[in-house]
Each structure stands twice: as structure tokens, then as C-alpha cells.
């Protein structure tokens, strides 16, 4: 029963905003979900901003979202590193400022020894020297941790290559296999459910990425709804083999989709 969904997980980029501008109807839709008492969490593989900065950025776009309601791949990765590799030196290759999320973790630069290779979002930092350093650390036995393995994301007018492409290359070259922390990892969704306090079968995930959002959610027992905004491409839906529980025009249509007839 759709109307029994109590928890709603929302992707940010491509669902609420594109290039941090609100999509039409998104602000109102979030307010309607709150009015209906839905428990919300905002899940993002964005690796370039802290939760505080994301909350402020969303506020400027018109959304009232508390930092504690946001689950980022960067924050989840930091938590994973503290838990799994305490005291490890981490070579962090990412673009943007994750700042305080990695407090207490020893980060090293290119050319320095490290125990763990951590890959975040792609950018100009992904130079041959940096990637080669990561490759050599992996060859020496360092584990590979990835905030996500997205292949691209939607910017204002174009798709842009993301870290997934580099991770595949590092895996192939080194024989390593990355531990992925952000979407579509099941543990990421389980962490969101734990924070919500809502069962998987009473939760729906809404996103624009078939793999990270829809398949990832469904693998965790959560309903997956695809929006036709952001990186959505009809041709990809046709060839993907992923079957969303619904495909809606945008998040503006979500409250009405969730509401059953009386």
C-alpha cells in the first residue's frame, strides 16, 4: 500500500536541485511530505560538501533541511574509516572540501606513505601523478575505499565524468576491489533506515539514478521511485533491466503518487 510509506529517502542532486538550483515543485513537495508526517532523510553521494554546508546550500535554494537529516557518502566513509581502520593513514583523493567530516583521521598527500586509499568525487585532483600514487599503494596491499562509484553526474547543461570510471581502472590495474560506502551500497541504505527508525518495507527511495538510487534501494528492500529529472535518460531505463516501483515526472508528483485514493 503506497499510503503506508512512512519513511521517504530523497536523493538531492537531480531530484531536489540541479547545480544547486531548486527544480520546479521540489520545495513544495518536501513541505507536503513533512505536512503528512513522513520521516525524511536526504541521501547524497555528493562528496564536495559537508552536511552543514549542504544544509546551508539547500536553505538558499528554499529547502528547510537540518544537517542531521542529511546522509552523505563522505560522512559515511569517514565513519567507516574510523570504525574499520582506526589510526590508519589515508590517502584521500577527492575534489572539493569535506573538511570537518574527516576530523580525527590522518590524511596523507600524493607521494606520502599511506595504509588506505580513499576515493571521493572526481575533479582536477585526479591527475596521473595522484592516480599513479593510488595505484602503487594498492599494489603494496592498501585497501581501496570508495565514497561511491558513480560514473557521471548532471551539471547545469551536461553530464560530467565521475570517480566510478577511475575506480574501475584502479581495480583492473591493481587487482583490488573497492569497498563502496555511498549509494548503492546496502550498508548506506541500512544506515538511513536506522536513522529513520522505519522498516524497509515502509520506506521509499526517490532518485534519478537507476543503479545508485533505484537498484540500491530495492536491494535493501526499499521501494525505488525514479524521477524523470536530473540524469534520467529514457533509453537507459529501457536497457537497464532495473524495474522501478514507479517512474514519475519529478518530485513534484511524489506526494500525489504516495497518496492513495480515499
Amino acid at each position, binding site marked *: 500500500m503506497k499510503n503506508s510509506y512512512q519513511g521517504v529517502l530523497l536523493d538531492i542532486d537531480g531530484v531536489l536541485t540541479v547545480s544547486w538550483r531548486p527544480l*520546479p515543485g521540489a520545495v513544495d513537495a518536501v513541505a507536503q511530505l513533512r505536512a503528512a*508526517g513522513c520521516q525524511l532523510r536526504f541521501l547524497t553521494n555528493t562528496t564536495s560538501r559537508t552536511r552543514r554546508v549542504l544544509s546551508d546550500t539547500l536553505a538558499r535554494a528554499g529547502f*528547510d533541511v537540518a544537517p542531521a537529516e542529511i546522509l552523505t557518502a563522505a560522512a559515511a566513509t569517514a565513519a567507516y574509516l574510523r570504525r574499520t581502520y582506526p589510526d590508519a593513514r589515508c590517502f584521500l583523493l577527492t575534489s572539493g572540501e569535506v573538511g570537518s567530516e574527516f576530523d580525527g583521521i590522518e590524511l596523507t598527500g600524493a607521494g606520502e606513505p599511506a595504509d588506505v586509499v580513499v576515493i571521493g568525487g572526481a575533479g582536477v585532483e585526479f591527475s596521473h601523478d595522484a592516480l599513479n600514487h593510488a595505484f602503487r599503494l594498492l599494489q603494496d596491499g592498501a585497501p581501496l575505499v570508495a565514497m561511491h562509484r558513480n560514473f557521471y553526474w548532471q551539471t547545469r547543461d551536461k553530464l560530467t565524468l565521475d570517480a566510478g570510471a577511475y575506480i574501475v581502472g584502479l581495480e583492473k590495474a591493481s587487482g583490488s576491489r573497492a569497498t563502496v560506502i555511498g549509494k548503492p551500497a546496502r550498508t548506506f541504505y541500512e544506515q538511513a533506515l536506522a536513522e529513520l527508525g522505519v522498516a524497509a518495507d515502509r520506506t521509499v527511495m526517490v532518485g534519478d539514478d537507476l543503479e545508485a538510487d533505484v537498484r540500491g534501494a530495492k536491494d535493501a528492500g526499499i521501494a525505488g521511485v525514479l524521477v524523470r529529472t536530473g540524469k534520467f535518460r529514457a533509453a537507459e531505463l529501457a536497457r537497464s533491466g532495473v524495474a522501478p516501483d514507479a517512474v514519475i515526472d519529478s518530485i513534484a508528483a511524489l506526494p500525489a503518487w504516495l*497518496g492513495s*485514493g480515499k
Partner: protein
Amino acid sequence: MAKDIPAPTRKELVDALLLKLPGVAAKKLNGLDAYFVGDRMFACITEQGIGLRLPVAVATELQFSNGNVVPFKPGGMAVSREWVQIERVDAAEHEKDLQLFRDSLEFVKTAPRR
């Protein structure tokens, strides 16, 4: 001997007021009785009364001038400055709110999508 007729529920009373307005449909969202115009929700039934979306200026003024109008905070978190809760112990008194329901409907129907 005549049987007692049960008093109408808040839902039945509000249905009678809202569903006669043009374009209004009742839906259940998260188990909550909600009222939509098109794909936009503009009202819902709460334990104490009705949650209603109005222009910010109207919502703010109502909270100053009416003791039974408060910010709408389902689960303790305010929805937005546009959402208020109109509290009525006696649900039959929602009839007095009909003009506000009309104002809400018109506002939500015509507001630009944000």
C-alpha cells in the same frame, strides 16, 4: 426504540466541506487524510484539527489574531511558514473555516511551483 446515531467523525465533517469545492480530491498519505487539488496537497486532518497551507502573510496574521491557529508541526518539526494548524475541539466548528479552506485552495492551485 430508536438507535443512537454515532456522531460524524472529523474526517466525515471535513469531507463534507472540502469535497464539494471544485477540483478537490481526498487521498491518504502516510496514513493521514489529506486533500489535494491536482497533484498539490493543501490540507490534511490532524488529531487536533486541520493542517492548512496559506500565503505566508495570511498564515502569520492568523496566528496573531486567532488563539486556535498555530504553526503546523507534525512530529514536532515545522513544515514551513505557509502551513498552520487550525485547532477545533468540536470538529463541526470547521464550518467556520470554510472561507480559509477556499483561500487555501485558490492559493495552492495558482501558486507558482517552487
